[in-house]
């Protein structure tokens, strides 16, 4: 414990200095404090935003509602992407036919920035949750499908032979041998996917819906509430970190057989 603190201590110096410079810059007028509010101001705003009860203040006590909307969209979109991505990725990786059929389409669509889909999302799904879910699911789908396909295609032939020799029925190869063998790749895809989901939820909420942390950010920008924007940025950072950690822990549990590999 003490050793851990001693190791962590040098790593804290950098952030502390950065915070100090930020603080001095905005309190001593090196930058315009309206545009770059001081750290303590941001902290105060965040507290008010989360716990505030002041009536009539637009940012008082609304944090949970916004955060919940964003989290719902992230996990909803991510879940859709994971289910479809793993299913299609398995087909592409395992069956030549699907690889020939679907892989070129995916490789063509993949480099297009997801933001380019915003007009279509709004036209087809309106300024509603469905729009955001579509954009997030689409964005997270690509890393998941590509990694799953790579993992499935890379299943060692020897393991497939061993399973066939042990009497496995052909249709059980995918669930019993191929998918477990591809799990490390699938989890890499899922981690990339959840990271993208948090990026895209902000984009989607700025452009295509009227709630969530991204919407709050955009709304605050109109009123030049830079403190709220920074508070929202911090919130997204922390929530993104927590969801990545959750996937990592799940991955460590599922892949417990590969410890020290």
């Amino acid at each position: 414990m003490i050793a851990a603190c001693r190791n962590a201590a040098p790593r804290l110096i950098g952030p502390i200095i950065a915070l100090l410079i930020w603080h001095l810059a905005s309190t001593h007028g090196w930058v315009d404090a309206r545009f770059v509010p001081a750290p303590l101001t941001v902290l105060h705003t965040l507290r008010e935003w989360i716990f505030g009860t002041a009536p009539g203040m637009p940012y008082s006590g609304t944090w949970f509602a916004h955060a919940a909307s964003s989290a719902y969209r992230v996990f909803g979109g991510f879940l859709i992407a994971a289910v479809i991505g793993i299913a299609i990725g398995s087909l592409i990786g395992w069956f030549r036919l699907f690889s020939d059929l679907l892989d070129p389409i995916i490789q063509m669509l993949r480099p297009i920035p997801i933001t380019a889909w915003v007009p279509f999302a709004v036209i087809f799904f309106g300024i509603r949750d469905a729009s955001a879910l579509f954009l997030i699911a689409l964005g997270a789908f690509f890393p998941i499908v590509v990694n799953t396909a790579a993992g499935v295609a890379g299943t060692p032939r020897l393991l497939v032979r061993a399973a066939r020799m042990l009497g496995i029925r052909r249709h059980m190869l995918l669930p019993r041998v191929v998918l477990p063998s591809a799990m490390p790749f699938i989890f890499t895809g899922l981690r990339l996917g959840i990271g993208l989901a948090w990026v895209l939820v902000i984009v989607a909420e700025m452009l295509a819906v009227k709630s969530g942390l991204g919407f709050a950010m955009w709304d605050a920008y109109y009123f030049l509430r830079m403190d709220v924007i920074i508070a929202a940025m911090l919130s997204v950072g922390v929530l993104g970190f927590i969801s990545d950690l959750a996937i990592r822990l799940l991955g460590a549990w599922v892949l417990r057989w590969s410890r020290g590999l």
Partner: protein
Amino acid sequence: MSLAAVESAPRKRSRIIVRALRKRFADIARREEVVAIDGIDLVIADDEFLTILGPSGCGKTTLLNIVAGFERPTNGELMLDGVAIRGPGPDRGVVFQEYALFPWLTVEQNIEFGLRERRIPKRERFARVQRLIASVGLGGSERRYPQELSGGMRQRVALARVLVNDPKILLMDEPFAALDAQTRTLMQQELLRMWSAERRTALFITHNIEEALLLGDRVVVMTARPGRIKATVVVDLPRPRDVTSPGFNAMRREIAALLEDEVQAAFAGGEP
């Protein structure tokens, strides 16, 4: 000691019959057709331990893969207990040099894999797995993953995994080649002990003369590519065999002489 040109007559019912087997495949990198096996006739008797010895690249692994059902022969006939072999199955248990264990399954689950996939009832599965764990000496490691085991332990799991299916024949492709010398000797003894107890038919591939002589009732010596049978040597030394005895050494010299030309041919033939 006797040396037959093709093969000696099997003493008992024949388990595996291989007739006029040929295997060609296209070497894409070198843009040429390769004849891996060129006319092999082989009969493995019920409860016989047959070892196949040959230089690297002589097609001995291809032969095993064909008997296992992983690859199809270009020509020839292939029968197990009078029935043509089509595809792999649990009646032919394969032990690979690279273990080929499922890394995401524990020792116990690896051994249980075949029974489970063949929908053997849970109670029977448990009893058979427990018996095998005890007989290959894996007690206490049931819940460990393959990554956590030594090479010798992994190969025990691989052996238990096929024996639990009660196969008609054991096919082993240089199973101990990746092990250190001590573990290798130990595993050879273990294998012989289990084989003597059950008298299960075995086809064992190796490039090690001593191993071939220590284990086999007969040793089939193969030629360099294209693989043919050069000679079949009946090993009539009593078991357990002493690798330092004069009789053993005489056979070792005899087989070394048979093999030497082939090793040189394989070398000159330009293994890339």
